[in-house]
């Protein structure tokens, strides 16, 4: 499957496993692909993220915040509140009883051969479909970015910057026209 990946796209996949390690995640998830895309700023995917003001450091902070809340997104915390559950109060009590580390990732692994979550695999599969849809004969960082947005589990991190799938696709096409 990786044969059609461009060199920067392969680097993103590799850098995502490193980002997962730095963030103490046991497996490589879509958000780690995002961090890797933002780090590889020079390629199309990274340039589109930079145009929206997304930085790798900013993403890492947001991911750490999400981890502290047991992986719940802002929307999920709001939805819980609407059914009468104050998730922040739950997290506060967990920290009180078990310490702040209790909410940190369960398995801070240092293993080099980190596995991908089903979500991250779906992003990579989806990136192939994004490339096909745009009639591109390669899979580049821009297709991985669109794959992350299409898969959805990390799109809340981008929604905070006003990035939607349709908006990002437009910017990708702009970038490619400019580069051509």
């Amino acid at each position, binding site marked *: 499957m990786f044969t059609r990946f461009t060199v920067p796209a392969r680097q993103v996949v590799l850098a995502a496993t490193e980002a997962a390690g730095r963030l103490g995640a046991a497996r490589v998830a879509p958000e780690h692909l995002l961090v890797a895309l933002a780090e590889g700023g020079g390629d199309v995917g990274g340039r589109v993220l930079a145009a929206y003001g997304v930085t790798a450091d900013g993403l890492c902070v947001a991911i750490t915040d999400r981890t502290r809340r047991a992986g*719940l997104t802002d929307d999920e*915390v709001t*939805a*819980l*509140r*609407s059914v009468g559950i104050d998730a922040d109060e739950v997290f506060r009590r*967990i920290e009180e009883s*078990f310490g702040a580390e*209790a909410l940190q990732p*369960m398995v801070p692994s240092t293993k080099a051969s980190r596995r991908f979550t089903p979500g991250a695999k779906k992003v990579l599969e989806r990136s192939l479909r994004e490339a096909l849809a745009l009639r591109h004969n390669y899979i580049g960082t821009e297709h991985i970015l669109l794959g992350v947005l299409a898969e959805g589990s990390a799109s809340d991190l981008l929604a905070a910057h006003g990035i939607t799938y349709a908006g990002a696709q437009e910017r990708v096409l702009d970038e490619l026209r400019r580069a051509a």
Partner: protein
Amino acid sequence: MDDTNGLATAASAADPGTGLTAVAALRKLVEHLESLQVRNARARGWSWQAIAEALGVTRQAVHQKHAKR
């Protein structure tokens, strides 16, 4: 929480999107709390049998799910 706030909350919970998101979020929260509580119980010397009884599941189920962690 005042009345207006309470009404707004009740209204949004009637929305399927919000309600279903809340259910999905609860599942995540439950999984997280379960692994936290099981680890804590093990650290305090609870047997798998005792943990399973408290959770209302079989010993095999709780062991299979949490033993590797």
